[in-house]
Each structure stands twice: as C-alpha cells, then as structure tokens.
C-alpha cells in the first residue's frame, strides 16, 4: 500500500537526516518503526505525510508511493485527502478549542454523515474526553494524547501514521491505546505505520517491524523475527537471555549498540 524507496531528506538545504531509507507498509497491516532518538523516525513520517515542507525539509532523492501513486512533493492537506493521516509527535491538539471541536476537525475532510456516530465511537473508547468540556489546552498530557488519537479515528483514513502514541500514557492507558490501535486496524481496516519507543508493545501489536539508525533502516523483518532477535531483545525489549537488569544497577557502565 505504502512504499518508501530509498529516500533522502535534507533540512534547511544543509542537514541530511535520512540517507536512503526504504520501507514497505502492506495494506491492512500494522508496521512498527523503531529506533533511537534522533534516528529520523519522525522525519520519515513527515516525509510521507508531506509535513516536512512546513519545516523547511525536503525529500531530495527517492520516492514515496501510496496505492501505486507517487506522493512526494504533494501538499500535506492533499495527502490527507488521499487517505493518509498523521498523528503528530507531541500530541499537537488545538488547545484553544474544545475536545469536541478538535474531534470534529479530525473529520474535516469527510463529507459523509457518519461524523456524529464516529464522535460517539471515540467517546466510547475514551469516555474521559466527553467529560472534559473546557478547552483542550487544559487537558493533562495523557488526555491530550487520547484526543490526538481520537482525532485520527474521526478522519477514517486508509493509513494512519502514528508518532509515539503511547508517550506519556499510564500503563493502563498504554494497554488501552494499543488495543484500540489493533481494533482500528481490525475493525475499521486501517493500515497503520507505528513509530514507537515502547518496542515491546509495538512489536506485539505489529505484524512487521523496521529498526532504523542514523537515517537508515538497519534491520527489518516480521514482528516475530524481531522479537526473537538477540540485539533487539537486548537493546529494545530489555533483558536478552538473562533476567532483565534493574535500572538501578546500570550505573557505571554504558552499553551502546551501533548497528552499522
């Protein structure tokens, strides 16, 4: 459904961030994209959704196709209309509007009459949002995250790009969010490209995974394969063969895996 072929991304005409990145997102699947801070995960998503443009970034090489159509260089709003919706990193809700207005905006591109029902559906997933009638800016961090995901559901896209949806959520909510992600995927048939730091959860929910480092994909495979990969175990899932190390005792030494 979505394929990214060997793209290069440059910010401000000088900073090269992605160096020949490729990945595939097959229809109907959940694909996880993992990687260290600054590896370029968010940049990849922005390259797909076209939002790169708004940050002085540019895809300088390679191409991105969605449903057989080349979409690099297209304006972000048109890409949304083609069915790709990004849940941006850091929630990015519209803080001077109410929850409901935020959700209604999620459905901006839709013309059908299902908006009202979907609103109810979102409230069912996140009952909290219905209770908060004030401005969204005053919501707690986690509540804002729920709103951001709810907004994506309202758009009913073909493909959702999620940038760290579990960030800042309580364990309970993380579970809920992941189950919702899987539900969306299953019930609504939405394909999902998921950027996550919570590798454990991500690889459980996903069917495939990519691990990137320094702007390149360094490892990929089915979720199963990745879960069983020793390096992934050690550096992303915590605790390879032995018992998980306590955070407390990591003190004096420092490990760092570089994949290249």
């Amino acid at each position: 459904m979505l394929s990214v072929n060997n793209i290069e991304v440059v910010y401000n005409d000088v900073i090269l961030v992605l160096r020949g990145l490729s990945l595939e997102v097959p229809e109907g699947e959940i694909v996880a994209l993992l990687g260290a801070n600054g590896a370029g995960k968010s940049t990849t998503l922005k390259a797909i959704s076209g939002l790169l443009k708004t940050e002085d970034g540019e895809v300088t090489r390679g191409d991105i196709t969605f449903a057989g159509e080349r979409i690099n260089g297209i304006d972000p709003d048109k890409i949304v209309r083609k069915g790709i919706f990004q849940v941006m990193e850091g929630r990015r809700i519209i803080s001077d509007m109410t929850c409901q207005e935020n959700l209604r905006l999620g459905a901006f591109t839709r013309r059908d009459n299902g908006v009202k029902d979907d609103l109810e559906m979102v409230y069912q997933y996140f009952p909290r949002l219905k209770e908060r009638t004030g401005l969204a800016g005053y919501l707690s961090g986690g509540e804002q995250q729920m709103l951001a995901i709810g907004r994506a559901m309202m758009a009913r896209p073909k493909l959702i790009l999620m940038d760290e949806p579990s960030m800042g959520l309580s364990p309970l909510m993380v579970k809920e969010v992941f189950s919702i992600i899987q539900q969306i995927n299953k019930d609504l048939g939405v394909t999902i490209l998921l950027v996550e730091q919570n590798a454990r959860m991500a690889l459980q929910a996903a069917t495939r995974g990519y691990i990137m480092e320094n702007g390149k994909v360094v490892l990929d495979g089915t979720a199963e394969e990745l879960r069983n990969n020793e390096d992934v175990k050690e550096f992303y899932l915590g605790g390879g063969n032995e018992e998980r190390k306590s955070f407390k005792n990591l003190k004096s030494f420092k490990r760092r895996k570089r994949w290249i």
Partner: protein
Amino acid sequence: MFEARGVNLRFGGVQALTDVSFGIRKGELFSIIGPNGAGKTSMVNCISGRYKPTDGKVFFKGADVTAMTPNHRAALGIGRTFQNLALFGHMTVLDNIMVGRHHLLKNNFLTGSLYWLTGARKEELAHRREVEEIIDFLEIQHVRKATAGTLSYGLRKRVELARAIALKPDLILLDEPMAGMNLEEKEDMARYIVDLNEEFGMTVVMIEHDMGVVMDISHRVMVLEFGKKIAEGMPEEVLANPRVRRAYLGEDDEDGEAPSAHTAQQKEVA
C-alpha cells in the same frame, strides 16, 4: 525538605487536586505516579510555583513558600523539567543551559554590556566551565552549539535536564523524563537521575509512567488518582496496593500473579 499540607487546586469546575499532603525528605528520590489526568503535573506545578494552590500550603526548607513566585523559588533551589518540552527553541543548547545559571550569575545589563571592564567576562567563563561539566555528564557535547529547536525529542529532553541541573537546585522536579525514549535511552536517563541523586546529592521528585524505572530507582512513591492521594510508601508497598493496581496498572484483582512491573507491561494485549 519539602512539605505539602492539604493542597487543593481547582480550575473552574475541575478539581485537579484534593487535599493532598505529603513530605519529601532530603536526599530522597521520590516518585509520583497515577493515571493520566490524576493531577501529577499539577502537583509539581504547585511545588515549582507555576500554580498557587487554591487552598493549603507548601513548605520548602522549612519556610512557607505558598505565595512565592517561581523565579524566587528557583533561587531558593527548586529546579524542574517539563512534560511538554519547554526549551528556548531558538537558543543554542549551550545558551539554554547557561540560562539555568541565571540566578547564580551576578552581572547585569550594565556590567554585562561593559563585558571586559566589569568582570562579567570572567564570571561568564567560570560558569561556562561548570556548564561544560554538565554537558559532559549528560553526554551532549556534540550538540552544544546546535539550536535547541532542531534537536530530536530525546535529545531535547536531555538538554532540559541539563538546564535544570545548571540551576544547582537542591530539589529537582522531573516530569516524565523518560517519555518517548527507547529502552537504551531510558537506561541512560535512569543512570543520570541516580547519579544526580547519589553523587550530586540532589533531592529528586519524578513523575514517570514506566513502572520498571519507578520501582527500580525510587525510594518512595506516591500515587494520585482523580486528584487525591491514594497511596504512599516504599515502591513494593505501593505496588502491592490493590487499588493502585486496578486504577493504574489495569490489573484485575483476581489476577493472582506476583506484583511486578514487567508483568504489567508484558501482559498480552486484549
């Protein structure tokens, strides 16, 4: 070191905190956990002075600081990081951290302008040296001169921590320092926090959702739910509390498993 007595906080119709009292001992690593919207950040805001409790009092180092502005509290020795990044986006990383030194520096707009004549240069350089130490400590040398706004999320969090450390606070408040980090990075971060606490002797208050980290490194934990304190104590004690497990970790009571952070995370997704 710090004490909250009957803190209430209300925003219009929302009761963010209800009668919360607790104390933090010197040298402690104190964690606050709780579901989203429980009022954790609000509590930290009451400590740092961003919010004034509608009711109740907060004490720091024995003095009532309830009415004190945030900038004065900073000078008294309270530093913090933010849940939603709050760096000075257009400044370099170095300058961001130097801002942390604000209350330790003496030069002002007059002496600063006359740089060479008034000792401002000497002072700036002396502090620069200390800042560089913090930079080394957090291993962010390579982005020292980069503009903070262009860094990736994880690095920004680290710069924020550096900035808070630069204040030389006695009490440092960390609002979800590990959100958005992968395991490896969490490990680094945990190491920094433990070092801060043990080697620099800072008292740490941390909000964190990763139970693994919370359990492993904190000395005491407080749990908030709907603005009320529902538990406080040693990590194991708190985790054993069924109410906490239900409300926060989402476990069923009948689930007879031994209380452990990882089980919570490892549980199959429904």
